[in-house]
């Protein structure tokens, strides 16, 4: 494990650094710690500049199972002390200079240095290394040339990015570069720049596709509006034509019916009646409120509907009763007082298709 800076070490270091006696340093540190604990108890939070914040975090009561017996037990909620480092401190720590990771740090530093170098230079250096290695392997120098040239081709693209065509052309040499680089894999330096190179290409690719998609979308939208106007004109003319026809037919039919048919009249009366009931259903009214409930964190209209009406499907009623307070049923504000209307039996009958239609309408109407 790591070494410790014990309490007395801290005291001594403080005395030396701040030019005070050890006694004074001790008095300060003891008072400091006592106050931190006191503050944790009273305020549940202590912020210490230059270090971080000690917090008291509540852990909620939860259910668990006794592993041996399978019995359900409840674990009571409790508080725990947590420490959140200050942003600057956290950053320093993440960069890390721990004893166990000194090597690691050296590597990352190295990588950072390489990252600072211009990518073109990197490619050049990389190519040189490849040439060296190939030379070591005793292979013919012909193979080296394409490797050296290819990065140049990439340079061109880096300097003047063009649309997709050039990108496609460049991607092919990349494929051919990779096998040539594989023997270098042992060398971490050569590998790292390669990794950094790829995302660049990718971002090029993504940018191009993004532009394409945006252009397509714009075209679609423009086309949609253009077509819609035309089509609506069409549809209007067709509908008008049909209307005229039906009116003509209806007129004829009326003349026919005037002659006889007692039954038909009855039917007509019936249909009028159903139409009337339709109209009644379509208007949602309520006279009494069951209650008004304040929304708490996590509650929804559907839950209220289940609580008061027995099923979440009736939530549009609640929504309808609270139009003035709830603009979007998916985004309700915590603390809003929601009116829960008293509903009649007919309104709570999901076997009735009219009720379902009403619910559907309430849900959609904004």
């Amino acid at each position, binding site marked *: 494990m*790591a070494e410790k800076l014990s309490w007395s070490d801290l005291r001594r270091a403080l005395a030396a650094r701040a030019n005070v006696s050890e006694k004074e340093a001790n008095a300060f540190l003891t008072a400091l710690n006592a106050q931190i604990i006191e503050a944790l108890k009273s305020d549940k939070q202590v912020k210490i500049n*230059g270090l971080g914040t000690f917090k008291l975090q509540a852990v909620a009561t939860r259910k668990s199972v006794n592993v041996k017996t399978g019995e359900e037990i409840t674990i009571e909620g409790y508080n725990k002390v947590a420490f959140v480092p200050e942003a600057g401190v956290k950053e320093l720590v*993440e*960069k890390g200079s721990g004893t166990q990771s000194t090597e690691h740090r050296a590597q990352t530093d190295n990588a950072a240095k390489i990252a600072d170098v211009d990518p073109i230079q990197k490619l050049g250096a990389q190519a040189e290394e490849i040439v060296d290695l190939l030379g070591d392997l005793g292979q013919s120098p012909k193979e080296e040339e394409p490797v050296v040239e290819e990065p140049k081709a990439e340079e061109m693209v880096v300097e003047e990015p063009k649309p997709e065509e050039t990108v496609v052309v460049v991607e092919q040499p990349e494929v051919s570069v990779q096998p040539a680089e594989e023997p270098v894999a042992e060398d971490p330096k050569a590998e790292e720049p390669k990794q950094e190179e790829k995302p660049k290409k990718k971002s090029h690719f993504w940018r191009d596709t993004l532009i394409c998609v945006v252009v397509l979308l714009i075209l679609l939208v423009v086309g949609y509006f253009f077509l819609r106007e035309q089509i609506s004109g069409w549809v209007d003319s067709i509908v008008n034509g049909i209307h005229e026809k039906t009116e003509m037919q209806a007129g004829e039919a009326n003349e026919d019916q005037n002659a006889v048919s007692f039954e038909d009249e009855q039917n007509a009366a019936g249909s009028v009646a159903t139409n009337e009931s339709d109209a009644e259903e379509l208007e949602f009214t309520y006279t009494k409120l069951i209650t008004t409930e304040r929304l708490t964190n996590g509650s929804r209209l559907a839950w209220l509907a289940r609580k008061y009406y027995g099923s979440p499907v009736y939530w549009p009623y609640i929504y309808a009763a609270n139009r003035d307070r709830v603009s979007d049923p998916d985004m309700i504000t915590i603390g809003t007082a929601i009116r829960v209307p008293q509903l009649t039996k007919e309104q709570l009958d999901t076997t009735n298709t009219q009720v379902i239609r009403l619910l559907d309408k309430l849900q959609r109407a904004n």
Partner: protein
Amino acid sequence: MLTKELIGQVVNTTKLTKKNAEQLLATTTAIMRENLLAGKAVQLQGIGSLEMKERKARTIVHPRTGERSIAPSKNQLVFKPVGNLKDELKKI
């Protein structure tokens, strides 16, 4: 409680002046930071200990795209409260 208030409390219970206390606190935190960054665990008597530990690299899944990637290893500060304080604060 903020640092200012904390210093005020410390000043109330000791003979130190506010300026002195501020200076001492700054020095203390500086010492602690240096030691923490050097990989040492710092003990705070009666409170607990702070230590820098390595958090290992792990694979993470992007919740929306389901893409898998590697979160690199990093160091983080770990605080371990003293048993006494832990029990004392459990029920407040």
